[in-house]
């Protein structure tokens, strides 16, 4: 198992955002988390990546309990993510955004960087080469010197993906990667996800776009009001009465 959630709970001042959620993910698996708005999907991402600690339960990543670790530790272990509303650094260029993600793969400290010691320069060259490689992989090399807000949303989502890949993760969490993309762009994004999976990286995604979910996911976990109400392969989920009920009468648009 690459990721195993065991009865993970999170409450905010009396509001139970997650109530005993458990599921497992195998390596190189694409798992989708679906559910109506307010089901706790983004909260789930935030506790897994360390934005805040869960109130209860265990989160095992490659066998190690990471629940409550700070985000900089969790990314170092091999979990990265993207955001529902693109959160690229707006004052950094596209290349610098991806270079930043190499932070834990480099070590030069203040004095070495300030004096431009040979080892700091070598390391900077390595950071740049690795970042360019990831931009290249996603076809973004010619956008490297632009700042993120100048790019169309579709490209910004690829930059976020390149930044996540640059941390050399074993698992990437994608929060609504197709939001704002048209059908063709969503399909292209799906192809890229398959290519990433081929490199041995597992993907956990939150998605409202059902056609996309059914096409790319190996497994689907359905949340409603912080609880897991169903789990299975896409064909099972599509016909699950509980899932259909959860969605009926609820507004599933953003």
């Amino acid at each position, binding site marked *: 198992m690459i990721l195993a959630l065991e009865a993970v709970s999170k409450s905010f001042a009396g509001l139970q955002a997650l109530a005993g959620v458990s599921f497992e993910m195998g390596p190189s698996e694409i798992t989708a988390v679906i559910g109506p708005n307010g089901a706790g999907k983004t909260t789930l991402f935030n506790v897994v990546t360390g934005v805040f600690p869960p109130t209860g339960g265990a989160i095992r990543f490659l066998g190690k309990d990471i629940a409550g670790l700070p985000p*900089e530790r969790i*990314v170092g272990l091999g979990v990265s993510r993207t955001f529902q509303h693109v959160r690229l*650094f707006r004052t*950094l260029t596209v290349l610098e955004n991806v270079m*930043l993600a190499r932070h834990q793969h480099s070590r030069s400290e203040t004095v070495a*960087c300030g004096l431009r010691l040979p080892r*700091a320069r070598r390391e900077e060259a390595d950071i740049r080469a690795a970042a360019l490689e990831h931009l290249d992989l996603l076809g973004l090399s010619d956008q490297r010197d632009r700042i993120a807000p100048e790019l169309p949303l579709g490209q910004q989502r690829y930059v976020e993906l390149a930044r996540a890949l640059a941390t050399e993760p074993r698992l990437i969490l994608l929060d609504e990667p197709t939001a704002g993309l048209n059908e063709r762009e969503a399909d292209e994004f799906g192809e890229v996800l398959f290519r990433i999976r081929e490199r041995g990286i597992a993907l956990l995604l939150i998605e409202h776009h059902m056609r996309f979910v059914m096409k790319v996911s190996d497994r689907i976990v359905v949340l409603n009001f912080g609880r897991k109400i169903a789990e299975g392969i896409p064909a099972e989920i599509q016909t699950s009465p509980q899932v259909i009920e959860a969605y009926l009468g609820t507004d599933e648009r953003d």
Partner: protein
Amino acid sequence: MNHASRVAWAGVTVGVLVLPLAAGSGFYLNVLNFIALYSMVAIGLSLLVGYCGQLSISHSAFFAIGAYASAILSTRAGLPAAAAVIVSQCITPVLAWGIGVVVLRLGGHYLAIATLSFTIIVEILIKEMTPLTGGLQGLSSIPPITLGGVALDSDFRFHFLVWPVTMLLFLFALNLVDSRLGRALRAIREGEVVARLFGVDARRYKVKVFVLSSVFASIAGSLYAHFVSFVSPAVASLMFAIDIIMVLALGGFTLLWGALLGAAALTVLNEYLTPFADYKRAIYGLALIVIMLFFPNGLLPGLRGAVGAILRAVPGTRR
């Protein structure tokens, strides 16, 4: 750092070092020396406030700590001036680290108020610890720095210490902001949580840059003490802290070159506004409000942006 910046740095360094040899002594050298001292503090503050986004109003305190540490070590402990400067730079980082670890848990306005309080405490301590600091009288007869048997006791001689030190610290800062650390600082400014999610230990880096920028201020303070041979509680005043923020407001918060230009502008203004005496502060205060209202990133970047916008608006100037 890009090529243009490197060439500009080399050009300014050579220019400022050749200038007194070509133009000879004069009062302008005194002004230039103060520009250098202001620049050091402003460059340090730019790293902390501009690049890392942590508004601190404690830089006059660290300037004063450097000045007083150097003054006390050389007049009371009998250390040679150069040694006093170096020992002082070992004291400041320890103090800055202790303060930084505590106050940098705060952000935004809270951090500004906490650092402001620290500045007030330092000022009071300097005024009250008379046996050590000379109280309101200050400390006088601070020996000049002596290098290779030459006492740096004139504007001309001091120039050849203060400017190389300033330009080296400036180069250090230019290198730093263009490294993995610089990217980390800029990422922290934009969003601490996202920076942490990509591996930046934000709390550690904030303390680091706080210590580093405090040392920049402290070096300036030490050099100042040996240059003017006299320190008084005025160096620890809140007004001086505001002056340094004014330097960044003029030159731009995230432009290291702006720190240099802002320091030059403010030092020259200080000279020309001397006849206005106490009203000078009121003028600065008003200017600061106006700049913050219209150019929150600083006057220089703001004007650059405004000129660019006007040029684009004029038909026919665009390709």
